[in-house]
């Protein structure tokens, strides 16, 4: 049994006619980092909200198929039960911060207070979350005095402290500067190393290519592909789904630099460099051969 099991998930928002999610089936294992890509309106946010039960419990609407997290059916359980297993971080940290707490430390305690966690246990969990997201230095600061990157990491920490098995992040770095978004991506990676499954909707393909284990490509509510970044980003029809492969992939595709398997193209700077070196050693080997032929 996989940790996340989505079977034939279909969903329609109230008062609409089109399916926002159309027959999606996929599974994800513990500790996997899954990237969700697709153009705006492809269904990324709706899918994220279906994983935590906001679809259908909050939005209502028509729902078919099932989402199971660790064997628990999200539709059959309440949101209050679901959030013990799955946490969600919204696109904008401002919508996540409670506004009722004076320090970062207390803000992270908020969810735990509502779960009725014992004080000693709470303190251990908060310290661990602060450490994991590398925000110990700001624990006594006021939440709204933080920078965007720090605030987003605090939002993630407050979800992590609740010890979910799955964390869902909906474009968590769109408001951040390059350094802030790198901080968040590193933090996300350390979560998946701890065995937490990460579901990450994101437009920054270069980052996803570097960090994700698998990529789910959504289009018009349907799951078009679900495979490694190399395979998904090497698809020749990616543009039809309104998605641009990482810059490395686009350039390598145009000049014919392939990976050693010959099926896929590089998706990261390191892979592009390896493909370049392979190409060069092939060229110099063949020119040596030519020269050898001439002198024989």
């Amino acid at each position: 049994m996989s940790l996340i099991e989505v079977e034939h998930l279909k969903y329609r928002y109230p008062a609409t006619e089109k399916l926002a999610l159309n027959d999606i089936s996929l599974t994800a294992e513990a500790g996997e980092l899954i990237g969700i890509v697709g153009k705006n309106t492809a269904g990324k946010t709706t899918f994220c909200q279906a994983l935590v039960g906001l679809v259908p419990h909050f939005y209502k609407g028509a729902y078919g198929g099932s989402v199971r997290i660790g064997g628990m059916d999200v539709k059959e359980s309440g949101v209050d039960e679901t959030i013990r297993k799955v946490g969600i971080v919204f696109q904008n940290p401002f919508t996540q911060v409670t506004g009722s707490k004076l320090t970062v430390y207390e803000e992270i305690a908020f969810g735990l207070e509502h779960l009725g966690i014992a004080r000693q246990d709470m303190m251990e969990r908060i310290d661990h979350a602060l450490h994991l997201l590398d925000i110990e230095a700001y624990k006594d600061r006021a939440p709204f005095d933080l920078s965007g990157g720090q605030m987003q990491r605090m939002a993630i920490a407050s979800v992590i402290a609740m010890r979910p098995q799955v964390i869902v992040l909906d474009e968590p770095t769109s408001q951040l500067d390059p350094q802030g978004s790198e901080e968040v991506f590193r933090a996300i990676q350390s979560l998946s190393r701890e065995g937490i499954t990460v579901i990450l909707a994101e437009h920054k393909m270069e980052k996803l290519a570097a960090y994700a284990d698998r990529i789910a490509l959504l289009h018009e509510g349907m799951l078009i592909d679900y495979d490694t970044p190399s395979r998904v980003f090497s698809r020749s029809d990616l543009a039809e789904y309104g998605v641009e492969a990482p810059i490395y992939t686009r350039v390598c595709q145009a000049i014919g630099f392939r990976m050693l398997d010959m099926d896929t193209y590089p998706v990261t700077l390191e892979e592009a460099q390896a493909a370049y070196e392979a190409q060069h050693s092939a060229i110099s080997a063949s020119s040596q051969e030519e020269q050898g032929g001439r002198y024989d």
Partner: protein
Amino acid sequence: MIKIQDVCFGYNEGQDVLQGLTLEFDQRTTAIIGQNGAGKTTLVKLLKGLLKPTGGDIWVAGVNSKDVTVAQLAGKIGLVFQNPNDQIFKRTVLEEVMFGPLNMKVETAAAKQQALQALEMVGLADQTDVNPHDLGLSEKKLISIASIVAMNTDIIILDEPTIAQDAAGKRRIAQIIEQLSQEGKLVMTILHDMDFVAAHFERTIVMNRGKVVLDDKTREVFSHQDLLREACLDTPYVTQLGKQWGLPETVLTTEELISAMKRPR
């Protein structure tokens, strides 16, 4: 079109966010980059007159910003906020976009015309009767751009327009910037997406801790990896790749890199 001389500004006394900036802006498309907290948004709010400098002077189209009200400046300079939710408040998309021109005393019919043209430009002409709050963040961002474009100011400042945009949305924003620039307007943009800056802006200004550390043609700016690092920035992915592959020149677009790699060496 804008000149600023020794401008200082601080939100709290004794803590200057901007420390003696001197800059001149012409019609070149201009990107302002820098990490969060570098002073980019503060600078554009000063230009727009929403904040007044604590030291130095700002002239917009020859007028000192200290001598005029925000309302008087509004006819010359438009600013699209980073967060569209700070800007949008009307019940339909059309009303929202007409709000600016109407407040500039444009006749209703003409205001509607200007609004429709602006909505055409951002690709939302078919959404005039929709409640903007029912739309997604990327569309709200386009509405807030349209409502500034509709005011037809000579200077347009965009604060992080590419936030939440997918590939098509980014192409759309690039077209808008190009079209406005061709109309002779000064388009100034705050951005975090270095590859977008490299591909679409003639001039780039790098800010760090309230100071300008680089101000040059975009290609020149992205040739200074060391100085960018100091400002906690990196060169565009495409520039990094060109460098990694040993190209002597600084490439700014995928097209440039591809043709450089196809060139016989």
